[in-house]
């Protein structure tokens, strides 16, 4: 129950943030969805950094991981909006824009996740290093 509450609270925050960026950078169904691209790229980076870095540290409580991971970042980023935009652009026969959007989403989002994981690894908690420091 506590876990679900943490995810729910995080989901509210993530959805509100996404809605705010959507409002700040509005686009019609047939325009390039810049807001979603920014949201997904930045969200993939941050989640990668958290998973590979901060979350390896034992001091981080489980509820905070749930609030930020499946909650804030899970709800902030979206797969459905990408699909809906691709279908909208396709229905309007804007194939070059649809192709560009799909490529941009993949070629920015996945490297962003990789960069996050790589940078997060630099603050990774290593139990072995701990043991070495103590001895």
């Amino acid at each position, binding site marked *: 129950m506590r876990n*679900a509450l943490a995810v729910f609270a*995080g*989901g509210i925050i993530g959805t509100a943030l*996404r809605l705010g960026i959507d409002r700040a950078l509005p686009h019609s169904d047939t325009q390039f969805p810049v807001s979603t691209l920014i949201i997904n790229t930045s969200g993939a980076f941050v989640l990668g950094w958290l998973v590979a870095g901060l979350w390896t540290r034992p001091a981080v409580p489980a509820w905070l991981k749930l609030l930020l991971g499946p909650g804030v970042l899970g709800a902030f980023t*979206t797969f*459905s*909006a990408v699909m809906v935009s691709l279908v909208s652009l396709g229905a309007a026969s804007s194939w070059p824009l649809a192709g560009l959007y799909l490529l941009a989403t993949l070629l920015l989002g996945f490297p962003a996740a990789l960069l996050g994981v790589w940078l997060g690894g630099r603050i990774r908690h290593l139990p072995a290093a701990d043991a070495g420091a103590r001895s």
Partner: protein
Amino acid sequence: MNALVFAAVVAGGGAAAVVRYFVSRALPVGPGRLPIGVLIVNVAGALLGGVILGLAERAVLSSDLRLVLLTGVCGGLTTFSTWSVETIDLALKGRWRSAVLNLVGTLLLGIAVCAAGYLLAR
């Protein structure tokens, strides 16, 4: 957008995030295996998104309801961050087949069901 619509969008997103959490917890990912829970949730959300897009085009749904269901429920249910990070994680562990399957499989299924939902609903 009034305060009530805003509250409905964010509450829908929060509730959908809880559904995603329970589905992925019910289908735990084995090491190096396909993260099937997130795949199912993302594909289901893409289908729902296509149906809502089609209904909104027929003016069956108001723009407020479209916002609550698309931005709130579908947006909160599906995730790009977990999809990308789990795919990268599989690739870094040398599980290339699972990584490619997760990337391409989610994408192809997502586009197919979203387009089908849209075409059937509009």
